[in-house]
């Protein structure tokens, strides 16, 4: 496949990019779009640091050929922040000390977001299972799980406030 122009939708914005078939999504996000939040770590699909959401589902961008992500909604960690307002999951990670070196963090947060979107009221065990594809060498995972539990509560509260405010 020669270099072809392909349409991508990243964090809600459309991009026309020149891609070759052998390029992975993580390379395109980082090198062509300058979105450095998505980390390149093991590069072989075993650590989860490169996790992005594609149409709401968590996928490994190091193991995704960029051409296969055309025309799909891609969410990177940069897409969670609204201006300078942190997403509740990001804030919870900060507040609960769930970040040490920060390298696993974008992948962790995106996996957590995909999980909480479908499971708003999880147990600790369910959170651990949902994040099993994301490795962390620093924290020992305890505070990460606590942060996600806390974020679930905050998101739930906001949802209930919003529902009540409609009346």
């Amino acid at each position, binding site marked *: *496949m020669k270099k072809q122009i392909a349409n991508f939708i990243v964090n809600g914005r459309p991009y026309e990019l020149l891609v*070759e*078939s*052998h390029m*992975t999504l993580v390379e395109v996000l980082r090198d062509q779009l300058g979105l450095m939040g998505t980390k390149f770590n093991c*590069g*072989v*699909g075993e650590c*989860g640091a490169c*996790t992005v959401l594609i149409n709401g*589902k*968590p*996928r*490994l961008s*190091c*193991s*995704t*050929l960029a*051409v*296969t992500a055309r025309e799909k909604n891609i969410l990177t960690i940069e897409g969670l922040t609204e201006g300078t307002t942190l997403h509740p999951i990001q804030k919870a990670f900060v507040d609960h000390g769930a970040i040490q070196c920060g390298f696993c963090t974008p992948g962790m947060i995106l*996996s957590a977001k*995909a*999980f909480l979107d479908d499971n708003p009221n999880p147990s600790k065990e369910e959170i651990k*299972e*949902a*994040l*099993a*594809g994301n*490795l962390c060498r620093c924290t020992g995972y305890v505070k990460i799980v606590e942060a996600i539990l806390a974020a679930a509560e905050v998101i739930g509260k906001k949802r209930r406030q919003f529902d009540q405010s409609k009346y």
Partner: protein
Amino acid sequence: MKPFEYFESGTVEEATQLLAEYGRRAEVLAGGIDLVPRMRKGQIQPEYVVSIQKIHGLDCIERDGEKGLRIGALTSLRTVELSPLIRNDYVVLHEALRSIASIQVKTMGTVVGNICVGTPASDVIVALFALGARLKIVSISQERMISIENFFVGVKQNVLQPGEIVTEVLLPIPAVGTRGGFLKMARTATDIAKVNVAVVLRIADDRCEHAKIAVGSVAPTVIRAKGAEEILKGKKPGKEIIKEAAEVAAKEGNPITDIRSTGEYRKEIIKVLVRRAVERVI
């Protein structure tokens, strides 16, 4: 990764035509969670990659009358894991999928892809052996059904010829009273198994009417522990019978020593897991 020519097939016909034309110079792309990392490592360097991702009708789990339950080639491991149909009627497959830790891998990877990679340590394949699954193989000129037990001929080697792809897995409808369970021992929650075991049994009138025991990671392919099955069949599955069956199962594998475990330990663990799995299912 080495550059390659990329095709997105719109139909199975297109895909099989391309695969027949390019033979061993081409690889199929479904989920890509095995293919892409191996290409990144340089372990395989295909000149052509034929994507089947855009083919309609391959992402499905549906009952096909009395034939059984069809799982299409693009159905992800995660979809199958979360399916109530699978959780209710094919518990052994549900448990096998639960034992695979990474949600991302399960979201991207497909059941059929996992089968076609064919590692003898595959949790999915072990469960499918115990379920008596069959595969539909399609080429440009014909279709054929094959029992999953006849699909593998060696470590990660199967009977597919150039131009053939597996389009679905068919699970037989379980008879009333059939129960199953899956057990795995690994170094960590995310690691490949040292040994994995799947058991499907049917008890009628206190006796074991049907038994399939599959063991993975102890031979070049997943195996059926047929000696162990014979011990159980027709008998009341009491402690002594189960112990005897487990001991026979341990002799049926030929496990190697590798980075994950020694052959001796694996032999012992076959015995333990078969006993535990049968006891749990009863």
